[in-house]
């Protein structure tokens, strides 16, 4: 500590230790905040299966399911001071039938994401990948607030899916026992990523609801049928 450089090195070294300890405390403080996410409704509103190509120049035709849905969910308790953003996604899930070609024998469940969204916390609004006008509106919606639990309240009616799903075999029409499932992934500023859980862990309750009723995918809409 006899010269300025040595004092700077020593002080900075201890500063990094302090940063590490404070970051660990912040990460652990997540466990002290109760989480009780709940889904009010998750239901399909319109299900169709169409034939299409995986990309423009493909000669292969596959069946694609287009699942419109409605969602009411309250994920507000996931927003704490350490929440950067929450990734919410809806999957369609159905049991694998080994008879279908292309299904690996060790797969028991098919899962495919049909829709997702990123909900930023106000502390991470500047990271949102949106245009300047939308960003201004987003920042205004939580002006003066460090956390905004109302961001976690989702109410979506008759939403078109972002992704039309298919199966490795290319066949998906007339599939039975399909359910929609809501998932979330909490991304903190510091700490571990956490997903929706099926059991209670301490103050973190499992996701209530989050599964739709079982439904079946219809047969392909035929062009000939449409003409008749």
């Amino acid at each position, binding site marked *: 500590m006899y*010269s*300025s450089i040595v*004092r*700077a090195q020593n002080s900075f070294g201890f500063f990094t230790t302090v940063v590490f300890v404070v970051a660990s*405390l912040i990460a652990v403080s997540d466990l002290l905040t109760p989480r009780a996410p709940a889904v009010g409704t998750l239901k399909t509103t319109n299900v169709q299966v169409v034939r299409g190509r995986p990309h423009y120049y493909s000669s292969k035709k596959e069946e694609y399911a287009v699942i419109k849905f409605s969602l009411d969910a309250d994920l507000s308790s996931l927003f704490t001071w350490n929440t950067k953003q929450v990734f919410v996604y809806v999957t369609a899930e159905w049991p694998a039938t080994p008879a279908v070609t292309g299904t690996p024998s060790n797969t028991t469940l098919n899962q495919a994401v049909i829709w997702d969204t990123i909900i930023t916390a106000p502390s991470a609004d500047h990271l949102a990948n949106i245009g300047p006008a939308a960003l201004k509106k987003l920042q205004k919606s939580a002006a003066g607030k460090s956390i905004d639990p109302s961001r976690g309240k989702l109410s979506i009616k008759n939403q078109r899916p972002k992704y039309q799903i298919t199966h490795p075999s290319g066949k998906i029409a007339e599939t039975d026992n399909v359910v929609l499932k809501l998932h979330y992934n909490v991304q903190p500023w510091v700490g571990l990523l956490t997903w929706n859980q099926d059991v209670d862990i301490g103050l973190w309750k499992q996701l209530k609801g989050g599964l739709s009723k079982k439904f079946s995918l219809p047969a392909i809409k035929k062009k000939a049928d449409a003409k008749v």
Partner: protein
Amino acid sequence: MAEQILDQIRDVAEGQIDFEGQKLAELIANVALSVVGAIAFLVGYLLQDIKLAVLIGLGGTALTFLVAIPAWPFYNRNPVKWLPVGGGPQPLPNLVVNEKSVQR
């Protein structure tokens, strides 16, 4: 003249301080950084505002560096008293070997 100025600049940049000052600088740096970290966490947790916690942490750290790194005068209040250059008229110490005074 120019050499004198250069020496002064070098002294300020090097910032040498005495032994008591080194002890004090280390104590100030460690205590202040720990307190800043604790305040940053507590304020951030109570107000649920992580940006504020980061600002307090970085601001407090900058202040701590400002206090601990330059050679402020209060780090040089106990300078080491060196013997004069060239020895000078120093009284010879009495050397005792086997309980007998040694004459030189």
